[in-house]
């Protein structure tokens, strides 16, 4: 995409029928660090890469709990993500107050999408620069949705967003058919493997990733570092370079090969503050 005369306003169409500002907002999502989600019939796992700017600072929070039965992982402008998760929490608690019942995640996702759409049709607004992976429960079981800045939303069995997410998507595409009936532990394992794919050979430790899980009968919780490290060790996911098939994952043979990088974000110091 190059700069052109139709990209100044979100309310200006291009002759080809595109809204460039909305597309640029989707680009912002690709610049954020990776977040992935996958689900079975009863559980959903969210995981993300959390790198801090420097050794001195803490990393940015990318996974938020909206309610006991809904959680969200974000990629892109974290500030926008924080505002939207506050909106989600508010909606969840208001519904609970009126109906003494958890808000079905499918409805929350539609409300979020409608909120995002508004920003694509007002001249005094800009689209939210954040992609949301919403994990939640409703009457029919566990669900994973992806909400775009454009106001679209899709349901997924597994998905990855953010920088170098293509590597994770490739891994997930190979394995997603088994997710529906996966156990909670296997889902966690696959999530961590997918995260490792995005690290491009870097060593996976619990200090650079965050994992959260939710399921039927299990409230949404972000796993603490020790638990995550234990999982990494147990499944021997850490890996270095291009690891061959690990002991308990015989179908991992090709997993370790260097992932294709189609998004190598140029680190410009003067771009809008985003997570690395």
């Amino acid at each position, binding site marked *: 995409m190059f700069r052109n005369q139709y990209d100044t306003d979100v309310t200006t169409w291009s002759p080809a029928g595109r809204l460039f500002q909305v597309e640029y907002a989707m680009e912002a999502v690709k610049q954020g660090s990776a977040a992935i989600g996958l689900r079975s019939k009863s559980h959903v796992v969210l995981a993300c890469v959390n790198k801090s700017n420097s050794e001195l600072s803490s990393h940015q929070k990318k996974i938020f709990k909206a309610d006991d039965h809904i959680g969200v992982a974000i990629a892109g402008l974290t500030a926008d993500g924080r505002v939207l998760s506050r909106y989600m929490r508010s909606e969840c608690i208001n519904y609970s107050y*009126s109906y003494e*019942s958890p808000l079905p995640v499918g409805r929350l996702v539609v409300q979020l999408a409608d909120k995002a759409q508004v920003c694509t049709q007002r001249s005094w607004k800009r689209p939210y620069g954040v992609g949301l992976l919403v994990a939640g429960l409703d009457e029919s079981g566990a669900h994973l949705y992806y909400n775009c800045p454009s106001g679209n939303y899709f349901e997924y069995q597994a998905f990855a967003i953010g920088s170098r997410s293509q590597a994770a998507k490739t891994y997930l595409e190979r394995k997603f058919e088994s997710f529906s009936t996966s156990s909670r532990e296997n889902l966690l394992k696959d999530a961590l493997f997918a995260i490792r794919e995005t690290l491009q050979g870097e060593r996976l430790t619990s200090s650079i990733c965050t994992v959260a899980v939710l399921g039927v009968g299990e409230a949404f919780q972000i796993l603490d570092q020790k638990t995550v490290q234990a999982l990494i060790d147990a499944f021997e996911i850490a890996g270095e370079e291009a690891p061959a098939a690990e002991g308990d994952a015989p179908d991992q043979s090709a997993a370790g090969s260097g992932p294709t990088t189609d998004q190598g974000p140029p680190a410009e110091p003067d771009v809008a503050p985003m997570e690395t």
Partner: protein
Amino acid sequence: MLNFATPVSPCPSLLDSSLLFPVSLRVIDRKIKAHLPTKAHSQVSIMNMSESVQVTNNLTNPEASSQRTLYPYVTGTSVVAIKYKDGILMAADMGGSYGSTLRYKSVERMKSVGKHSVLGASGEISDFQEILRYLDELILHDNMWDDGNSLGPKEVHNYLTRLMYNRRNKFNPLWNSLVLGGVKNGQKYLGSVSMIGVHFEDNHVATGFGNHLARPILRDEWKEDLSFEEGVKLLEKCMRVLLYRDRSAVNKLQIAKLTEEGMTISQPYSLKTFWGYGAFQNPTVGAEGSW
């Protein structure tokens, strides 16, 4: 002090002089206001005129200008409901009383709500109709989502609680006692909400006189997993007592059955009654000369 907290006696309000006295003046007010130009001073003079009238008005009848619910007019009497093996059974007679007159005899006081619930109401019938309108809108929006989710009886009960309580807080209650029952995904639910927002769930509930006459019977004779026939017999027993002892009861009732498949409501029918008691045959036996 508003008098809605005092015992109900609807008729007097209709004969209140307040309705006779200020109506004509109110009409005059509006006509004057319509014709005069909207200049500040002319409005002030109009206001002065109506103000002086209203001062007298407020002294003689402080509630004349109130737009809030003060007392009920057309009321339904008790609703009784129980959980049984397959779901919920609810009974209510079809009477709409106008004070002490048993004026309307075909009032349906139980209505289905969405796919999973049934609502029975006692109290002001027009307020019940208003509640049905609210619920209609609620269910409509719920259906418009067109996803696999639907509001179950628990959600509707809670919504009604919020509705009743919020109206009570504005001193403008919906003058009803509601019974909300339903079955969803095999779970039976039966709850009650009063006009001030008191709500609870139980295996058997009743409103109005039913609280005093039916619930003791239910406490003794209700058990888990009643069959349909047993349930109906139990409800009829309660309704018969109410028919004998509640002066606003009429002998024309309906029984609503709510199961996972949906709601069916019976055709109106009457209960057999027995009046051959000695005290009725010879009422004055203990006090000659009385009647």
